[in-house]
């Protein structure tokens, strides 16, 4: 596997500078809930402000309100947001994956109806994928959409759907026939449909973003099928594949790391400085990987194996970082502390096990990579 070294162009550096200036002004320290990467706070106004700047839906086509910009440009924006733990949850899924998926597979009507709202930060998407008996094994999904006149009737349960309570839309994968892989179809589900009940499942840190979705005879009209009926497995796989190489896979703890490294909890001793050096080197390496993958996407390639390779090590690394910083913190941090970074470290200890599960467990990713390598 080979990744070409690449660096930011002058225009990309200008964009980076603009984002930094915007964030310094828009999110001065103490003015917002610092978050853990992509699970930062949900702040619709902040999302709309980003949209107004043209920093959401950046790679979506301009004719649907998108920016028509590159994957690298999106990376430049995203890494600045994650570096400060910005409140990105409201727009995150729509910007990262639902938007590009709809742009690639949606009908003209769907694109016109949804992409402008994603790019402006008005719409919030959530993913309805896992079920109680299907975690990693999506082919065993059972929530069924049955044909009825003019559309589909859905019954079943989706779980572990992050952000569904706040979302305007859910991009869901339902079974439309018994064929394990070819019997799955993606649907765009409006969040307030009759028969759809969203119940929070309290998460390990006490937050309530993780939801269960109960579908009881929910009617979904034909025009909300995304892509081909029966093509959901492939669309879903493609949706997951490329996003695995993003900076969000290794930047979850960045706001805490920086606070610690810069002496926010006091100057670092020799051992802590060396650990900060090791962490910095790996962040530097992963940033090079994410940037190289984004360039490949911009040049029309599909670096899905590369992305899986990156995510497998990046999520383990993030977890290592939590352990290292906690060791240097010197005591168990308090989730209820007045110090936002202590509280954030406490939250990271609790939620970090999920980092190597979401978006494909490390075991699944290793399987993808070894199969990819065997075919190479």
């Amino acid at each position, binding site marked *: 596997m080979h990744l070409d070294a690449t660096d930011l162009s002058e225009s990309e550096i200008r964009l980076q500078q603009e984002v930094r200036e915007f964030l310094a002004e828009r999110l001065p320290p103490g003015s917002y809930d610092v978050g853990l990467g992509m699970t930062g706070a949900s702040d619709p106004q902040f999302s709309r402000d980003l949209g107004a700047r043209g920093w959401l839906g950046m790679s979506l086509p301009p004719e649907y309100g998108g920016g028509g910009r590159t994957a690298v440009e999106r990376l430049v924006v995203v890494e600045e947001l994650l570096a400060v733990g910005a409140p990105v949850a409201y727009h995150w899924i729509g910007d990262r994956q639902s938007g590009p998926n709809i742009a690639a597979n949606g009908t003209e009507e769907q694109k016109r109806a949804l992409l402008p709202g994603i790019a402006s930060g008005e719409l919030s998407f959530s993913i309805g994928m896992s079920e109680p008996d299907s975690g990693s094994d999506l082919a065993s999904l059972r929530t069924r959409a049955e044909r009825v006149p003019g559309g589909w009737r859905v019954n079943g349960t989706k779980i572990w759907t992050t952000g569904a309570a706040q979302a305007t839309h859910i991009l869901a994968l339902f079974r439309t026939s018994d064929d394990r892989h070819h019997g799955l179809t993606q649907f765009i589900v409006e969040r307030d449909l009759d028969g759809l009940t969203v119940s929070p499942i309290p998460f390990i840190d006490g937050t309530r973003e993780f939801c269960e979705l109960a579908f009881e005879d929910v009617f979904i009209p034909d025009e909300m099928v995304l892509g081909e009926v029966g093509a959901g497995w492939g669309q879903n796989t493609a949706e997951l594949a490329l996003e695995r190489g993003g900076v969000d896979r290794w930047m979850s703890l960045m706001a805490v790391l920086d606070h610690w490294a810069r002496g926010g909890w006091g100057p670092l001793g020799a051992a802590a400085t060396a650990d900060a050096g090791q962490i910095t080197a790996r962040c530097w390496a992963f940033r090079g990987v994410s940037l190289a993958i984004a360039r490949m996407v911009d040049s029309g390639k599909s670096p899905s194996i590369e992305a899986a390779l990156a995510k497998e090590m990046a999520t383990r690394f993030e977890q290592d970082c939590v352990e290292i910083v906690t060791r240097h913190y010197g005591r168990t941090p308090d989730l209820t502390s007045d110090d936002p970074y202590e509280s954030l470290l406490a939250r990271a200890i609790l939620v970090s096990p999920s980092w*190597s599960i979401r978006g494909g467990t490390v075991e699944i990713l290793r399987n993808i990579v070894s199969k990819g390598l065997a075919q190479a």
Partner: protein
Amino acid sequence: MTSQDVDPSFAPLMAQFFREQSPPERVSAAEQRDLDESLWAQVTEMGLPLIGVDEALGGSGGTIGELLVVLAAAGRACAPVPLAETAAASWALARTGARVSGDLLTVVPGDPRDTLTVTDGVANGVVHDVPWARVATCAVTVLTTDHGPVLVAIPLESASVRTGYDLARQPKDRVSIDAVRVGVSPWPGASDELMARLTLLRGALMAGALEEVADLTRQYVGERVQFGRPVGRFQAVQEHVVRLEQQATLALLAVNRAAAATEVNPSALEVKLMKLITNEGARLAVRAAHQAHGAIGMTQEYRLQLLTRRLNSWLGEVGTSADLAEAIGAAATEHGIARLITSSAGTMEQA
């Protein structure tokens, strides 16, 4: 006498008691309050926190071995009561010849930020991260004075408590003491013997929790089916299961060996070795158990998180790995590793 010599029927009895009286729902409910008074009433009625304290002084009698069995069972069930703290503080008071009352007591764990001073029986200063302080009647600590170590008993009704929490939402409070008259008694041992006792009891809680995490995970991966077979058949999942069994086994063995060593020397180096092994075991086990469980382990509906949040808290308290490694390393560089590990229980000198 150590846990090896405990009546074999005692452990199953205690396991059953805590399994029945401290089910997951009750543990979760207790997290929203300061204390499960009803459970605490049960355990004090049974005299559990006073095991290991002479009956002549108001204790329940019995051995450290029996007390560790109780704590391991409590750890397995995440029992939301201050058993370790009350037991350690009561033991300390009894060591000075005081009668124990069965009151809810706690121990000042000691923190670099602490500023406690005692002059002529009057205490001033702040102590941090005191477990259960808000519901305890008294916190004890050993201070070193010109006349040797003394046990200080701080009545908490006269102190101001600022509430804080560990990761399992158990009370861990900051206590400010402003000109409070305290009990001061000569301490008939080395100044670190109280911390060693508390560490040993915490270790037993952790060992119990580690065993439960291992059992729960083994059961889960045997039942959870993905890709047409139980996930426990996958090599990657087997690795997690093996890791959990290893760490649970090491931790419980370490607790029992450390207990034996304290019979010879109440502040034996083995207590530090035990806590370091148990801390590292907890760290590895939390990661392995969650990875084997997938998303279900991340929800509060499922009881894995009751255990892993406690383990994550306890490994950063009452002996952190960094402090322990430094102290043990100093002894190792002085005596050599081979001699240190092959010496008999309780005979290792600290550096």
